């Protein structure tokens, strides 16, 4: 699966797409593939603060739990309610299934994250 070039990526396999000061966040195809079938997503609440590199929730498969790390600092403006009943959407379309939206404190923070090419190089090494 191709990695959208307009997204930015973290070393913890999250992606972020910025529109103005709103960042939309999900996990990458690499992450969903490593996890296996996702059974549950532990989401924060709207209004919660998130900090770059700190956890904001977790994703569970049958045999593993993975923490979700925020790529940016800000405040949660929306959570994807659909994930409460259909967490498998992340497996099917990881780059089109968002997890949370964040009002980013400093939009420029996103520039320090990996672009698609850098991320692809990064996961090639991981494998």
């Amino acid at each position: 699966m191709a990695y959208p070039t307009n997204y930015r990526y973290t070393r913890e396999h999250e992606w972020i797409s910025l529109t103005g000061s709103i960042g939309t966040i999900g996990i990458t195809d690499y992450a969903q593939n490593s996890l296996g079938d996702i059974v549950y997503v532990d989401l924060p609440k709207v209004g919660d603060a998130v900090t770059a590199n700190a956890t904001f929730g977790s994703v569970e498969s049958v045999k593993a739990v993975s923490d979700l790390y925020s790529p940016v600092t800000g405040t949660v403006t929306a959570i994807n309610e659909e994930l409460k009943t259909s967490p498998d959407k992340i497996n099917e379309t990881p780059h089109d299934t968002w997890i949370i939206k964040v009002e980013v404190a400093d939009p420029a923070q996103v520039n320090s994250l990996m672009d698609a090419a850098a991320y692809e190089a990064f996961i090639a090494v991981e494998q």
Partner: protein
Amino acid sequence: MATNTENSGPRTLGKVRPHQTQNEALVFEKSSPGKRAYKMPPLDVPAVDAAALLGAAHRDTPGLLPELSEIEIIRHFTRLSTWNYAIDLGMYPLGSCTMKYNPRVNEAVARIEGLAEAHPYRPDSLAQGVLEIIELLQRCLIEITGMDAITLQPAAGAHGELTGIMLVRAWHESQGNARRKVLIPDSAHGTNPATAAISGYTVENLKSNAEGGIDLEALAAQVDEETTALMLTNPSTIGVFESQIHKIADILHAKGALLYMDGANMNALVGKTRPGDFGVDVMHLNLHKTFSTPHGGGGPGSGPVACKAFLEPFLPIPVLARRTGIDGPGTRDSGTKGTGTTGQLCWNYDRPRSIGRVRAFYGNTGMFIRALAYILANGPDGLRQTTEDAVLNANYIRAKLEDLYELPYKTSSMHEVVFSDKRQAARGVKTGDIAKRLIDYGFHPYTVSFPMIVHGALMIEPTESESREELDLFIEAMRSIAREVEENPELVKTAPHSTRVSRLDEVRAARKPILRWRPSE
């Protein structure tokens, strides 16, 4: 009478053949109003009007329990039982589980009326029998572990770990500093870090060295004045004896930290060495592993905690004691003050430095009886021989499979051997698949994917209870599967093929949990 000579008579058919098992629905689905399996004797006291007596507390709608006759109940559970694998059927190669024979005499003596019917609050004068059993078991376990004191209160291994870490904490607090962190090797069982966390400590991981053991230099660098203890399993979860353990103890003790030993692998040590002799300060035992009490499908267990003398004052209350006089020291008796004869066993609650209780009453007495029966059946020579056979069996398996399965560590194995699925993974077959295929050969799988320091681990512990025949059948099965991986990997990847249910959809069970039966609308 399996042999492996050419002219051994009729060809052996291996361990298993398929046969029919009965289907059986849920009890609720077989229920019918009016069916009865019980009968109460007539009341010899006046009947009461429950609704009147209880008023608003009365239950109007009964719980939806089934209504069946006795034969249906016997058939239901008997049929269910035939769907289970069990030690009584064959070997469990599960690593660190020590699935040994559960002696039947254990079951018989645990059911002796005076013991099985004893209420925990009966007066001590009426409980001397069971108290003597507890005293003898304590003495034997102290001797086996080389420690100074023991509590039998914890209900299981994990519970014992918690108790042990609480003892450690209490001691540190008495020294003026509770300290903050517990060191745990990355090869450890999951209960270890979970225990440390719920005891209020942070967990610091200790990376294993190239041999899968503790790197002494790394340890020395990591231990500081904020380290409470190192939680170690010995032999480790890869079945290797930590031969530097006394040096590990010294490093810890030099910085005022303690050595906690997870006793899950005691089956490699009993009668050959004692943790108390190589520097362990506190440890737990698993009566349901080393001491033959039955697993029963997942419990009950029992997790005694043994410790050195300096930790003894902190043991959970109550502690077994003997009265030294008519009005013995600090004894709380359940109602017969003044009748205590000198030397009578009793429970001592006067323990000001105790960590408190970790459970109500005294522990899983039923399991104490079984464990003591096991110790008595073995004696000193039997216990040692048991350990020797356990280690011999594991090494035999290792020798017979190491040409086909990858050995990640070359260090010698004790009572368990860990392979990795590296060679099979090259053909797309993982340890979990091999484990499922083993079921078709009539065995329970070994421990899959643990310890985490070995990629694709196969953790095998045969125990001393396996005959050479059974071991040879196991080896034959594993060798056959290795061939299948080369010739027909799909067969292995889609196993098991012979069970009454095939691989179950765990994803569905976790996404949409159905945790109880409900009547259909």
